[in-house]
């Protein structure tokens, strides 16, 4: 196990948001938690990697694990053709990410926003959703009416919001309850 040195030089440590695990996907663009220090995020990646490596070993799956820190988040990527750890539309990946965040929490006692990817699934899905979001934006601008998109996971909705945010003339928000929560794209009336 790699132990990152946890120097307490950073003035702002992560806040104790009770719901941080639930909201950890940061779907709402406005949500900006205080900046966690890099040492903590590196430690998150190390704990996650140990947890996942143990699982791969037991299952006799081949995969390399890479850790990184991006946008104030620990990112852990397992490479390899491991469709069983991704599942239909990423459901197994989301489940494994949730367990991995809990494993990290056990080590750090700080709710984790760690993002897990397996076999490049998230990048591929982000590209697909960007195309879908651009189509929806086009449709909204053409007809001036709102478009309701299909139910999506928090990660998927975030991918859509990111594209809509960067597109003139349209705005987006999420509606409905999990697991059927979906994105609505509106004309930007301002």
């Amino acid at each position, binding site marked *: 196990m790699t132990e990152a040195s946890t120097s307490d030089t950073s003035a702002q440590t992560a806040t104790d948001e009770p719901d941080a695990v*639930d909201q950890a996907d940061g779907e709402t663009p406005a949500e900006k938690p205080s900046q966690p220090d890099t040492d903590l995020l590196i430690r998150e990646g190390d704990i996650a990697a140990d*947890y996942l490596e*143990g*699982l791969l070993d*037991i*299952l*006799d*799956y081949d995969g390399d694990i890479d850790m990184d820190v991006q946008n104030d988040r620990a990112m852990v990527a397992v490479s390899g*053709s*491991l*469709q*069983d*750890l991704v*599942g239909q539309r990423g*459901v*197994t990946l*989301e*489940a*494994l990410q*949730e*367990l991995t965040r*809990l*494993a990290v*929490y*056990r080590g750090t006692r700080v709710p984790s926003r760690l993002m897990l990817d397996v076999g490049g699934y998230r990048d591929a899905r982000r590209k697909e959703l960007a195309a879908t979001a651009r189509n929806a934006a086009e449709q909204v601008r053409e007809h001036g009416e709102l478009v309701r998109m299909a139910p999506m996971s928090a990660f998927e909705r975030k991918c859509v919001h990111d594209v809509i945010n960067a597109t003139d003339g349209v705005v987006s928000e999420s509606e409905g309850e999990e697991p059927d929560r979906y994105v609505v794209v509106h004309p930007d009336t301002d």
Partner: protein
Amino acid sequence: MRKPARSPEVVRPALEHLVRGIVDHPDDVRVRMVNSRRGKRLEVRVHPEDLGTVIGRGGRTARALRQVIGSVGGRGLRVEIIDNY
């Protein structure tokens, strides 16, 4: 690429590992394979203080464990968290 479902003999320690990693009392985690007429199931026992963690709010964590185990071990394998002491 989809791999053949892992045998219950492999899935049992995999589940044990997943549970041990998230609880405060990893040494108290026991996962037992039970053969019944309705098929095989994995029974998970944890320290009473860890029960809430393993089940999660609204059963969220238990659902995540079932999802991962179902995905690697095949749909026929059930996961049961034993909560009576």
